[in-house]
């Protein structure tokens, strides 16, 4: 596959196969949802919760493959269950509660072990494990695209509905509560939406690289602006850029998309932090 300086010809080359079209459709939907959810993850300081959800997704995906339903469906079931669990038992997961962090660490290790067993039971799919740990752009089926579309649309509508009180509850929970915001209910609702976001994002970058789309764009956007609407828009823009470029680079180079997406995300974040350190 040769790149030329003709952009349209390159684009035709990039999208000539059905699996790449699927990768781009799913990737764009994922990037939009991950961008919005990621803004809130960083604003709320819930990176650890996001990390936990992505790891719990691993046995979920394996279970989905094992019982012959879509791995995305397995991811959704496991992640949502974990989100509700965190929401009810450990709402202060990221607030430096040592005992909770230790407990969650043990659960994470167990869930990864469980995922390993499920994949083994499915018989010898090292490729499958690799795909779910690091993402795969080859294996996204038409059904996965449909499911991704449904999840992204529903999650984005839900986020739009709770957006304003969620910002309030995230930055100023005590006053928000006194003003009549259901702070705890919103926290659980957001974790469930985050679980959906994690479940579809895993397809593109895998459970181990998920922060590249779910945390870094939001973190970079918050470095650039303190206006919430602008921050959400920037986070979406960065997330889409990383995904589109990462998929294209992977296609033309034969190196994994996950590597390019994480590298683009990390590089952008370092540049922005550096620029702010210089100008400050």
């Amino acid at each position, binding site marked *: 596959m040769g790149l030329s300086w003709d952009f349209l010809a390159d684009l035709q080359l990039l999208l000539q196969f059905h699996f790449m079209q699927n990768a781009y459709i799913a990737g764009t939907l994922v990037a939009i949802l991950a961008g919005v959810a990621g803004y809130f993850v960083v*604003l709320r*300081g819930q990176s650890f919760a996001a990390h936990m959800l992505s790891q719990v997704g691993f046995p979920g995906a394996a279970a989905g493959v094992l019982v012959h339903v879509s791995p995305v469906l397995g991811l959704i079931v496991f992640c949502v269950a974990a989100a509700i669990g965190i929401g009810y038992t450990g709402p202060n997961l990221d607030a430096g509660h040592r005992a909770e962090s230790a407990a969650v660490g043990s659960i994470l290790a167990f869930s990864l072990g469980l995922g390993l067993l499920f994949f083994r039971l499915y018989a010898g799919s090292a490729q499958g494990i690799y795909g779910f740990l690091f993402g795969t752009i080859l294996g996204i089926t038409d059904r996965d695209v449909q499911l991704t579309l449904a999840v992204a649309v529903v999650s984005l509508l839900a986020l*739009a*509905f*709770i*957006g*304003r*009180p969620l*910002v*309030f509850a995230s*930055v*100023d929970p*005590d*006053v*928000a*509560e*006194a*003003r*009549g*915001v259901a702070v705890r209910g919103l926290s659980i609702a957001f974790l469930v939406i985050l679980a959906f976001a994690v479940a579809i994002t895993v397809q593109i970058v895998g459970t181990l690289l998920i922060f590249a789309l779910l945390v870094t764009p939001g973190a970079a956007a*918050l*470095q650039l*602006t*303190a*206006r*919430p*609407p602008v*921050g959400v828009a920037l986070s979406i823009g960065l997330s889409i850029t990383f995904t589109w470029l990462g998929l294209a680079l992977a296609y033309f180079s034969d190196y994994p998309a996950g590597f390019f997406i994480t590298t683009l995300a990390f590089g952008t974040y370092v540049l922005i932090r550096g620029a702010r350190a210089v100008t400050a």
Partner: protein
Amino acid sequence: MAENAAVAFANAGIRFGHRYVWREVDLEVLSGEFVAILGPNGAGKSTLLKAMLGVLPLTEGTVHVFGKPVHRGNDEVGYLPQRRRFDPDLRIRAIDLVRLGLDGARWGVPAPSWLPSSEGKAKQRRVDGMIRLVGAEAYAERPIGELSGGEQQRILIAQALVTGARMLALDEPLESLDLNNQQSISGLIQRICHEQGVTVLLVAHDVNPILPFVDRVVYVAGGHLVAGRPLDVIKTEILTRLYGAAVEVLTTSDGRLVVVGQHEPVSHHEL
């Protein structure tokens, strides 16, 4: 209940399990009064404010605000919770925080500001008016985490007032401020109280910085309340009894009261 009562507690009490925070509380604060709620740490001062906001339900008795039973989300009451400073990394503009105080509890997302929405414009004018009232124009567009303690308190007072609140419930607004800022914030609160007719209940555990500004003090200690004019309540015998420790009230050469002594925590009233 007096006709112009802003807050009225009647035979009120709050109990966590078997432990009373306070009980048999009868307290009326009149509209437009500036009242300081004083007492040792852990005496239940914040609990008094939270009961008034409807965040903590009373276990006995009643509390009315402007003649109506309390409920959360009352636009007539502005609240400034006890807190440490905002996280320095919190990236949201001060003015956004004030705006959230106005309509942050409503579902959905705000309409983009470039749309010709008269409702949005009216809200923006209101937010700007509050920023001017507290004198925060210079730093309203900066992220809240980057502001100094005194600047943050001014923004929070604007946030508490922005709904058109007729009463302010302020929990330790002077804590962790230096002496200059303590005085300028106290002065700002007194000015808002007098000029806007806003009733103010201000919780403090340090008596001295707030004393020159208030109309009345309420002392919370040992599960009970004592209320009155500063000169009637801030007396060596009364405070020593309330704190259960040696406390002395001195009068300075220009007639101000100063409270000195070891503020030991007071044990709670048991059932």
